[in-house]
């Protein structure tokens, strides 16, 4: 499930209030709180860690400049995720070709450090299986239209509920369900073609 702070305990609100009042240095606290999550979101939307870092940096700068527009009754994570998602989707739309997978020979992909499984992987076979799942997932996600990709990433990998996802994207829950349903149909079709087809161990329940 999502690891986002509850509304009442969200320290980001106070930080944004201070920033809006002119305390630019206070923004460092927001970066500290959300850098990991925003980097993760950008990476999963864009598919490239380096681009994700650039995007996340720009997202934080946008957030700093818009700190005065944050509505105190809202959720900080919703607001940040919305800026990040829109920024990344705009990047994707502006590109003619979405570079989501690392194209190349299997040997090259195996050698890419970003594709290595975590150190907890007990043996090479498990590591190889994990790497293949990641590559299949990336290929499947790459084929999705931007709006379906966004809901899939937010629900599946960020653990947001339909309601939270709707808030981030500024759409209705019905729109989230509809986009997710279409994404799922495509993923099922891809799985039947021999892509993503097995349950991985230690999978999150969402």
């Amino acid at each position, binding site marked *: 499930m999502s690891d986002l702070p509850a509304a009442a305990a969200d320290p980001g609100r106070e930080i944004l209030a201070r920033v809006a009042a002119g305390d630019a240095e206070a923004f460092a606290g927001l970066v500290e709180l959300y850098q990991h999550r925003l980097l993760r979101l950008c990476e999963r939307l864009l598919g490239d860690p380096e681009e994700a*870092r650039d995007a996340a940096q720009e997202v934080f700068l946008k957030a700093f400049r818009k700190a005065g527009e944050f509505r105190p009754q809202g959720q900080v994570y919703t607001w940040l995720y919305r800026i990040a998602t829109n920024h990344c989707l*705009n990047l994707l739309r502006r590109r003619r070709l979405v570079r989501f997978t690392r194209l190349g020979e299997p040997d090259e992909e195996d050698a890419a450090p970003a594709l290595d499984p975590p150190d907890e992987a007990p043996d090479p076979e498990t590591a190889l299986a994990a790497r293949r799942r990641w590559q299949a997932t990336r290929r499947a996600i790459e084929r999705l239209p931007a709006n379906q990709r966004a809901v899939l990433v937010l629900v599946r990998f960020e653990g947001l509920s339909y309601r939270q996802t709707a808030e981030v994207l500024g759409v209705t829950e019905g729109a989230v369900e509809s986009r997710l349903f279409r994404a799922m149909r495509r993923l099922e079709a891809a799985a*039947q073609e021999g892509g993503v087809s097995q*349950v991985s161990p230690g999978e999150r329940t969402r």
Partner: protein
Amino acid sequence: MNHRLEMDLMRLLHGELPETRARELRARMEGDVALAAAYRRLEAAWRGLDLPPAAPPTLGFAGRVMAEVRESARDPLAGSLGWTLAPAWARAAAAAALVAGLAAGVGLGGVWSGGGLEATDLQSTSSEEAELAEVTEGSLADSYWATLEETEEPGVPEPAASEVQP
């Protein structure tokens, strides 16, 4: 299988189905092999999605962000996002100037076509839209148009047209 049932299977998988309906659906799957198989396929496709853990923030990421923040605090229009965060009226004015410049260029191209100057690529295009599209392939014009889209974030209100960014 009807669409509502398919949607309910998805909601069940994501824990979004009200408990009463979830119980009904689970009970129905126990007696309906095809329904249960459909749910298992959906579940397999969903749970089979896997991505590597995100790379942690690199050393210095926070520092770079704050460096840009400090620069922005000193000069709000500085840096790569200067244009993207300019007021909407400023971006619209820049875009209008671009169109006007193009139109003037087309007009001049037409005036001079019979003279000593060579026909330009602009002159050879058939419409102003095509010319504008050609220019928007370039990074400079692209940023003008793209920023209009980029800052239209749902739920995050744009500054009013009369509002001047600090």
